[in-house]
């Protein structure tokens, strides 16, 4: 089959630009991180870095600070993911059936994601901790004081990061799931109404299984964003990190402490977990095989 062989060559040629981009921007830096995590490389130290094996990893496992950061990260990822999914499902179901003004409500729900987070995060930061002279600074100050005294210092900053993440993420997931619901033939929902009276049962027996690939993809994207969330935590707490997540902890070690080795080890520690989750989820959202290739 000469044609098939030429097709395969063409395929590799067409894959090249995407792979080249990923190799230079991601693969090389990740390789560097893996290697560095096994050494004591530091810009503050003279001489070539020494190979220290798994010492950097081992040190963290014995470090209570690490476990604290890990706990905060897991709780943060779980809380935001669950909230985003719940709200997203709600949005999608609200928009599923036609009604007057649906286009407008759809746009409203689409907005938080479409509004660039790079700048809305700056806006959130001042809204939640405004400069002193603004008209609402007293009110926000009171809120901050109330939350901080109820949950401990710095809690308000962390709550605001969580709120921001949920606000933006639920919008993305809502629109994404709506795309899923649109694909389900309406007859299926109508049959379900005849089968069961309980809307709750119908949701679990019909909607969830039909939307499984969408749920899986949404959950994965939400988790990776939460685990790697550095920019939002950093911006909204203005660098005063009271509740470190693994990302900010690693950043702090690398930039302020110059400890590249431990910082690399720390940021890589999440990768195996995410990979495991991804391998499970792939089975759910892989495009189904329709015709034999």
């Amino acid at each position: 089959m000469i044609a098939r062989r030429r097709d395969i060559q063409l395929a590799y040629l067409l894959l090249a630009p995407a792979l080249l981009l990923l190799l230079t921007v991601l693969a090389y830096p990740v390789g560097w991180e893996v290697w560095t995590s096994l050494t004591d490389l530091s810009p503050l130290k003279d001489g070539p870095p020494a190979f220290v094996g798994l010492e950097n990893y081992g040190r963290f496992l014995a470090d209570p600070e690490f476990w604290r950061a890990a706990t905060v990260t897991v709780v943060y990822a779980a809380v935001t993911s669950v909230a985003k999914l719940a709200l997203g499902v709600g949005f999608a179901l609200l928009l599923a059936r036609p009604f007057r003004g649906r286009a407008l409500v759809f746009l409203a729900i689409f907005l938080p994601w479409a509004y660039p987070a790079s700048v809305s995060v700056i806006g959130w930061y001042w809204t939640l901790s405004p400069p002193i002279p603004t008209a609402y600074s007293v009110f926000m100050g009171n809120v901050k004081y109330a939350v901080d005294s109820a949950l401990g210092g710095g809690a308000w900053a962390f709550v605001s990061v969580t709120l921001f993440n949920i606000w933006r993420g639920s919008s993305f997931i809502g629109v994404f799931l709506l795309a899923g619901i649109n694909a389900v033939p309406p007859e299926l929902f109508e049959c379900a109404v005849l089968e069961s009276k309980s809307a709750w049962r119908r949701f679990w027996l019909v909607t969830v299984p039909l939307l499984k690939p969408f749920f899986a993809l949404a959950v994965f994207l939400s988790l990776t964003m939460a685990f790697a969330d550095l920019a939002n935590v950093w911006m909204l707490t203005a660098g005063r990190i009271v509740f470190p997540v693994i990302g900010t902890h690693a950043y702090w070690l690398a930039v302020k402490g110059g400890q590249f080795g431990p910082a690399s080890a720390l940021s890589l520690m999440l990768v195996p977990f995410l990979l495991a989750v991804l391998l499970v989820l792939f089975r759910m959202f892989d495009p189904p095989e329709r015709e034999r290739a």
Partner: protein
Amino acid sequence: MNPKPWWRKLGHASLLLVAAVYCVFPIYFMLVQSLKTAQEDVFGNPLIVLNPTFENFEELFERKGEVRGFVGSVLRRSYPFLDWLENTIVVFAGAVAVTLVASILAAYALGRLRPPGFRWWRRAIFAAYVVPHTILFIPLYQVVLRLHLDDNILALVLIYPTLALPFCVWILSAYFQHLPREVEESALVEGASRMTAFFRIILPMSRPVIVAAGIFALGTIASDFTLASVFLLSEHNQTIPAGLGTMEVALDELLAVAGINLMAIPVVLICAVFARGYVRGLTAAMVEGA
């Protein structure tokens, strides 16, 4: 189905209202602030604006290096906002274009040509999302230096596509894979080359999915703040997010809010125009035969 009782209609309507207000309120709030005079910012009601003014927006464009007033020279820095705007447009347009071209080519290869192990290729590309960006900028800086792109917006045109590429390859290749073989086969039989068939048949067919990929890319790229602030150092090379990040907020709060809106409004408008296509494209990509 029988008509719904009035209380269910009311419940539905109020849920819609709550959802819409929840989503729009923070954006509304930022828009209102940016239209305020300094006086109203301090003494007015935070939720409404009585005397809307565009002076914050105008000031962004006026202040370029010129010192305004004596006190101003001490307290207020000037910002090259026009440069930021230009850089932002170049970076976003460039990065979205690179993302789309690279992912359409890769997706065509994976979805139509199907080299051996194409599923694993696709999975491997998607697995790029596993990489945490935490301190990745340190080795990435070495790459950028080697390419002589430090403090250059081209570095971002190169880096940004990798944020959106895996998802775009995923949905595009899923869509291409769903298309029946006959779609291009008839053209091939009549003697057209693969390239003609691609440009004349496949590409026009997949417009909604390409729109979806493009909007996803734009939304993802526009949300980056960290990379832009790390790689663009000098003032005149910054994009709007990187530049706004350097502003002295306590002094220039209104100005910065205006800057936020100036960047956000065009992005939001583009997204709104293509919103319907975005949903349609996602549906078409994820669901067989849709």
